[in-house]
């Protein structure tokens, strides 16, 4: 289904992404973990064609999407939705208008300028918002919403694209633990119910273990781990992050686990 072959991106003399290869046969939930600057974001941006690759191939259902240009590249982008850490909505437009932007690839420029969306599209946008539980916010400006709500609007925009793949670049890094869980649950639902592939860059290991079918670890642009969540032990995580034995993922974890050794008070402090 998706076949990534030796994808490389060079910035100046730095190899931000270095010969990344992996294959996916079904639309699963894939997590990419690694420290900042490991090349996770650059890789997702290359998949969405926001950034050009230096070399390599990304085959989706047999078609290499990296050489696509112009309208063909924009058509690919409409099938491969992107969700950003900072939501990247248009703050001054209302929520439904932001969701309707998901259809822009199939809307003419003139119709866009005169705001001529079809009744069916508007109703579908509101239905998607309803599905994500934020239909009450439909007429508000995007900037008036909280972070968690804005991220759900961004997911609604992605769903409006009716994409085969959803790429999420640290979708919960700017959110509090409760909103983070709502957003991750939503992504998981889309993955399971709609059968859309989700590839998410994640910061927290417990999130990766809980939601992903498969975890890819990156360090200095290379894949250093590729396996199931169960294989992602603390020792493996130390290798991925280049940390020594003082690294303890529970120190900054936001998971609430009263039965574990971590005292509740300490969780509250962090």
């Amino acid at each position, binding site marked *: 289904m998706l076949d990534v072959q030796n994808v490389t991106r060079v910035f100046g003399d730095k190899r931000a992404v270095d010969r990344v290869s992996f294959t996916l046969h079904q639309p699963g939930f894939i997590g990419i973990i690694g420290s900042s600057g490991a090349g996770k974001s650059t890789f997702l941006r290359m998949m969405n064609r926001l950034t050009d690759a230096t070399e390599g191939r990304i085959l989706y259902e047999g078609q290499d999407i990296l050489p696509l240009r112009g309208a063909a590249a924009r058509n690919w982008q409409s099938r491969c939705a992107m969700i950003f850490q900072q939501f990247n909505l248009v703050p001054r437009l209302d929520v*439904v208008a932001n969701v309707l932007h998901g259809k822009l690839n199939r809307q003419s420029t003139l119709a866009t300028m*005169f*705001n*001529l969306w079809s009744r069916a599209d508007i109703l*579908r946008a509101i*239905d998607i918002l*309803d599905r994500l539980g934020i239909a009450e916010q439909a007429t508000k400006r995007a900037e008036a919403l909280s972070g968690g709500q804005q991220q759900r609007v961004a997911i609604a925009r992605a*769903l409006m694209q009716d994409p085969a793949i959803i790429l999420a670049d640290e979708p919960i890094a700017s959110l509090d633990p409760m909103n983070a869980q709502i957003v991750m649950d939503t992504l998981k639902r889309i993955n399971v119910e709609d059968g859309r592939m989700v590839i998410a860059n994640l910061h927290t290991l417990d999130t990766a273990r809980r939601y992903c079918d498969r975890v890819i670890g990156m360090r200095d642009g290379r894949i250093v781990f590729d396996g199931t969540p169960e294989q992602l032990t603390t020792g493996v995580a130390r290798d991925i992050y280049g940390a020594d034995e003082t690294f303890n993922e529970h120190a900054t974890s936001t998971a609430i686990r009263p039965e574990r050794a971590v005292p509740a008070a300490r969780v509250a402090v962090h």
Partner: protein
Amino acid sequence: MPTVLPASARTVDIREEYLSLSRRKRMYGGILLVVFLAMFVSGFRIAEFRNAASLSEGFSRILDFPRDLITEAWEKSANLPAHAARAFPALVETVNIALVSTILGCILGTLLALAGTRGLARWPRLIPLARRSADVCRAVPEIVIALVLIFILGGGPVPAMIAIAIHTAGAQGKLFSEVNENVDLKPLEGLASVGANWWQRTWLGVFPQVMPNYLSYSLLRLEINIRASAILGFVGAGGIGYELRNAMTFGQGKFDQAAAIFLLLFATIVLVDQVSSWMRNSLTRGRGAQ
């Protein structure tokens, strides 16, 4: 579509609300378009009516002057380099007027902008004063200031310089304060938290953010001022405008001189544009490399 679910009563309300909202927006847009078109047509017809000759009749004659100028200059093209060399000192004077007045005006404009931006001003109560001063500087045409100053000080480059500097201060005060309004206040809060005073906060928190915009607006203003100081030459403020007026008005047969001056002015504007885009690029690259 798997995303479409049976709508609850609440969702139906939201649907109706949004659909009527978008219908209303579309109607407002349509009305605005009609009003705009009506203003355009009526304005055009008034201008046509007030004009001595109708535009449609005069249209064919619009190109008469450039055609005469080009044909005459073409016939005497051998004279062009000599004319250009003779006009060059006057061009230097014009560019000098523009440079001095741009620097002076931009410094004044920066102060006006800092004093007139909400959230940044040292004395918030004086914001209206700063804004109105900038308005006044901008509202009086520079040619009026120049004529008054020429009457007081006599002809020469100084009146032109002061007149353009005043106008520049007003225009840049407005543009710079709009740049200031978009400043990210978080660094300022950080500097305030360590006990920095207003000048320190402005110098370290505001200027690094606004400098690229200030610079590009100032370079654009330099181009505008070169043209403005050329025009002021027409009313006796020296520089290349004075030469141009002589070449264009005194009888026939001097159009080759006028063409040489136009070419010089054009080359100067192109040069300034190239240099300014190079400066802007190096500034943004320098920031990116850090």
